[in-house]
């Protein structure tokens, strides 16, 4: 049996009215000849029909099928939480001066309930900057969601937040979770899970707002808007905002706080561009650009560990073989569908292997101290501007090794590469004004 609490600010599909006072609406709304799913907001195709004549939504099928027989039930969010002093913050760390300035700006915007973008470079300590604002919101009895399109970000974040906010009950929601749903002031979830909510949250923090698939999915963007209370606000976190966000900032439609410096106060490493003309044709003969070979041999000789990014999964074995032939040995390949990915990344962290050959899967969320990055085929469409900046951001993350080399080998000088270099230069310009060191 479901409690009242399960309906607070949610939209649950049922075939009959529940015993409590939840109000229902048809799960599929008919508008003229078309039907719209009320959970995900997408329009049904004329073929999305069952043999018994019912309609069903294919877009949000993974969350459980909605048919024209279903109704969505909700109880308006009552914020029925016990007030906790200082928002249950148990974090004892210290913010640096720059982080503190940004944290105060974020807090100011949350207090006035304005939508806000925190544009902080990779390795700036975004999560910690949000803590003061989050603590204030929780102390007000707000319901808060911390959401990300990437499940690994959520899984990594949940224990950190549990430690930092020991005084607040927290729920972690993602596809395939083991624990049942719990009504908590702080919800950490993937953006897909927000589809189950309706006008629930006073504040939604969207981590890695430019990551796949959120950036290209109108369904998920609507889910965020829908899960937020009409008087609520959202806070977007990213190191590499997409074109539309940057445009909103330029038009003053979206407030922004820059953190152009990393927590250790050093500037971002700029991408070093090198021409590798027709390298793909060379690869057919098992040859890599000689400049690349020379550089990688140098790294091996100096015991400098590095990441080699390549465009596609199919390139991995070919390039790995070509490197072997050139005498650059000991590396391991990693891609998204690789079952051994966690162990290989861990081996790289433990410094048992000298380098990884990888696809864009390692563009975010991984930190190796003292690492160099080499991109082969940076002009390939899989490397978006954001991806290139994120990849460059793998370098120099630790305070002990705040700088390093990022080299990009391209067949041609494309707009994406130029924009990525431009974005890094723009952030470094702002960083220098704040006293950043190269």
């Amino acid at each position, binding site marked *: 049996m479901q409690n009242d609490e399960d309906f607070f600010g949610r939209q649950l599909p049922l075939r009959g009215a529940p015993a409590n006072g939840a109000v229902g609406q048809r799960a599929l709304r008919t508008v003229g000849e078309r039907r719209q799913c009320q959970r995900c907001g997408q329009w049904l195709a004329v*073929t*999305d*029909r*069952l*043999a*018994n004549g*019912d309609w*069903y939504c*294919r877009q949000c*099928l*993974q969350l*459980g*099928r909605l*048919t024209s027989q279903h109704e969505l039930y909700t109880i308006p969010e009552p914020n029925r939480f016990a007030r906790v002093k200082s928002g249950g913050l148990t974090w004892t760390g210290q913010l640096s001066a720059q982080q503190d300035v940004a944290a105060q700006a974020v807090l100011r915007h949350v207090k006035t309930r304005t939508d806000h973008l925190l544009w902080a470079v990779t390795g700036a300590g975004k999560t910690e900057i949000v803590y003061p604002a989050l603590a204030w919101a929780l102390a007000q009895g707000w319901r808060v969601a911390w959401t990300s399109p990437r499940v690994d970000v959520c899984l990594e974040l949940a224990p950190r937040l549990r430690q930092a906010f020991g005084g607040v009950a927290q729920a972690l929601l993602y596809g395939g979770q083991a624990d049942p749903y719990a009504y908590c002031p702080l919800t950490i979830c993937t953006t897909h899970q927000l589809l189950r909510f309706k006008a629930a949250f006073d504040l939604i923090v969207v981590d890695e707002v430019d990551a796949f698939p959120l950036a290209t999915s109108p369904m998920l963007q609507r889910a965020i808007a829908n899960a937020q209370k009409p008087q609520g606000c959202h806070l977007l976190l990213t190191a590499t905002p997409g074109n539309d966000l940057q445009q909103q900032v330029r038009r003053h439609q979206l407030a922004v706080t820059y953190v152009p410096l990393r927590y250790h106060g050093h500037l971002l490493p700029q991408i070093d561009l090198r021409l590798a003309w027709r390298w793909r044709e060379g690869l057919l003969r098992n040859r890599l650009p000689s400049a690349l070979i020379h550089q990688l041999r140098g790294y091996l000789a100096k015991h400098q560990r590095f990441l080699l990014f390549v465009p596609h999964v199919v390139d991995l074995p070919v390039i790995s073989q070509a490197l072997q032939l050139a005498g650059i040995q000991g590396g391991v390949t990693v891609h998204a569908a690789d079952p051994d990915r966690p162990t290989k990344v861990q081996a790289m962290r433990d410094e048992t292997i000298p380098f990884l050959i990888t696809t864009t899967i390692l563009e975010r969320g991984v930190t190796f101290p003292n690492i160099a990055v080499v991109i082969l085929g940076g002009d390939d469409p899989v490397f978006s501007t954001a991806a290139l900046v994120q990849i460059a951001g793998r370098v120099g993350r630790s305070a002990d090794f705040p700088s390093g080399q990022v080299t990009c080998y391209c067949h041609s000088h494309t707009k994406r590469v130029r924009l990525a270099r431009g974005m890094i230069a723009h952030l470094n310009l702002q960083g220098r004004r704040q006293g950043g060191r190269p």
Partner: protein
Amino acid sequence: MSACVWCGRQLQATLTLAQIWRFAPIAQATVCDTCQHRFAAITSQHCPACGRQQIDETVCLDCQRWSGRPLTNHAVYVYDVAMKAYMQQYKFQGDYALRVLMQAPLAAALQRETYDVLVPIPVDQTTWRTRGFNQVTGWLRNQPFQQALLVRATHKERPQSAKARADRLRTPQPFTLAPNASQILHGQRVLLLDDVYTTGRTLRHAADQIYLGGAKAVTSLTLAR
């Protein structure tokens, strides 16, 4: 430009000169090549009784344990990880659009069978209401079939797929004959059609009823084994 019904990737339609000159409607692909080749087809080396993929062509141990009237089953695909994932989304999540994936392979398999009447295994009333379709008839495009079987109204406490082998074998007869079944079945060679052959219990129960209806011979075809 359309997307693959399963993986959602965009399909690259290639238009040939011949297609342009024919001035006929062009059949649009709905499934990408990768998804179509995800499943492992059963080769000629299979158990002659149940159609299971194996390394020789002898009757498998499971089939030797069955007593009573033998039933010959053929299967199209191996019930492997890919097929389980497909069944999960199609049957249990109820994504009826995925039926198109299996329509062409099943039509080809039906061509290879000799039969007079095609009888798909029915679903019970509750399933029809909640799932909204019969997963077996969804795979048929225009092939004629007869609903000669009905499912008894007694409510299943658990689905077959949630039981262990010993439990499944103890399942009582779930089928009855439709009122007009004896006219349809009398003296005919009947082909039963089901989704997955696991222990063979369901198909044998169905075959028993079909024989009672006066059929001359009963064989079966399943999508997976």
